């Protein structure tokens, strides 16, 4: 009958109207900024540099290989390699970035830098409340601002961080096994008890 659809529609809207005062499913508003929805685990905004341990300078995983700088589509990363080297997480001396700048006003959050990094050094952050009134300097993040700890990485992306930690532990174990094997083959007689002690 003519008008039936209208009445059904009006009943539904009335249900919405009345229900919005009593039930949460009929009022889905989250009143930002007083209330916030926790972001999804895969949410990503801008990159950050991971460091292990307490000291960001010593524990920074980045070795300034500059792969991310080359792969970045809008070219928002600027890296200057250091002159000296510092030991990385397996102990091997590596370069480190004297300068690592990301211009987040250019960054398009494509995550390519994360995908190509061989050292699990750069990951995606999910912090988005970054508005500032300094349009140019305020949106140019340097190495200190970008460096965040591994614990923070565990907080925001737990599953990923666990996998990365497992992978890095594997690599470290392999490296140590290789070092032990090399030490064993280099000094087979004299270092045998020492190698057994160290393996």
């Amino acid at each position, binding site marked *: *009958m*003519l008008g039936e659809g209208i009445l059904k529609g009006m009943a539904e*809207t*009335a249900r*919405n*109207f009345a229900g*919005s005062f009593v039930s949460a499913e009929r*009022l*889905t508003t989250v*009143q930002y900024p007083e209330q916030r929805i926790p972001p999804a685990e895969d949410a990503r905004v801008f990159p950050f540099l991971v460091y292990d341990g307490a000291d960001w300078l010593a524990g920074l995983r980045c070795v300034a290989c500059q792969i991310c700088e080359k792969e970045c589509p809008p070219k928002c990363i600027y890296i200057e390699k250091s002159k000296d080297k510092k030991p990385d997480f397996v102990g091997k001396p590596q370069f480190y970035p004297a300068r690592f700048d990301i211009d987040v006003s250019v960054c398009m959050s494509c995550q390519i830098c994360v995908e190509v990094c061989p050292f699990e050094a750069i990951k995606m952050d999910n912090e988005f409340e970054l508005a500032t009134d300094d349009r140019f300097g305020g949106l140019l993040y340097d190495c200190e601002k970008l460096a965040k700890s591994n614990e923070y990485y565990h907080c925001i992306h737990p599953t990923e961080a666990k996998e990365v930690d497992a992978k890095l532990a594997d690599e470290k174990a392999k490296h140590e096994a290789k070092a032990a094997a090399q030490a064993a083959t280099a000094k087979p007689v004299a270092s045998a008890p020492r190698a057994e002690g160290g393996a």
Partner: protein
Amino acid sequence: MAANLDRVFILLRDWLIGFLPAAIRPAAGVVLGVIAIVCVFPGLFALTTVFERKGLGRMQNRIGPNRVGPFGLFQPVADGIKALIKEDIVPVTADAVVHFLAPLTLVIAVFMEFAVLPMGRNMALVDMGSGLLFFFAMSASTELSVFMAGWSSRNKYSMLGAMRAIAQMISYEIVLVLSSVTVVMIAGSLSLPKIVDAQNHYTGVFPHWYIFTPWGFAACLMFAVAATAETNRSPFDLPEGESELVAGYHTEYSGFKFALFFLGEYLAMFSVSGLGATLFLGGWSAPFSFLAFIPSWFWFFSKVMLSIFVFIWVRGTLPRLRQDQLMNFAWKFALPFTLLDLLVTALWHFLGAGWQRWVFCTVILVAAYVLMGLGQERHKRIGHRTYRYAD
């Protein structure tokens, strides 16, 4: 005590004009009434804008504006300040005089409509013998202002919007007038206070409002549809739909002139709701005889606000009608149904009191509605919905 509360505004007016010399008292009384209307209805308009936004929000599972005051109630103040401080842009090629006069004409015509509405016992500003005709005359003048707005902007979108708006308003004006004529036939007068008096009796507890009669219900339905179309309200808001025509005939208006158009539209909504309340819902009479101690102006404004709520409810529910669907509906369904309703009203009058007239009139109207509704839906063979996905 109840009688005094009922007459509180009249007593207030009499007390105020008592300070003036006797010669100018009648004129001063009218001027005070005008001042009251000019203060009350725009105030109600401000409240309605915020309640509309919050009501629509709740119907759409969200909260409306809630930042500007307690529960967002000062939002119209913010909106008003914004409208006032905006730059008043008049296009270079626009016709400046007509462009300026269009919102004025609209607001003047709409304010005049309030002069005949009986807002309480003895509270109609002017009791004219042909009050209803005056109302429709003013409502016809609003069409002219719509045209002036659309044409003077020298903008094709505005012109298109104005043409569509006028076509829609003229078509539905006929339906509006004819459904009011049914009430006039039974009440026997064009004067609105007399129409309210004709409805102000009770059998037992129940009132004799015309909406409780079969012809009155049908006429009220048609009146409601036509009123929604006259004031360009959703679902009939094609002339000003943002997604179709930018803003239709008020595209080129900014700042205060746009606020005046907005004001005019909402005030037209109030006045046509007031007319509907007067004609079909008994005006200022109470719904049950034992509630008659509550002042009459309270009932009138409650009915008006109820109608406004229904307007908002319908806006939140229905999608916009296309121009041809709208015109089709007016000429092929609404008008024939209203004419039939006229005949049924005459039948009601001539059959005399008794249960027969209730049965006959109801049966005729329901049958006509169902048959004509089938006729309207005949063309729409809407099958099962299929989807094509890109693979």
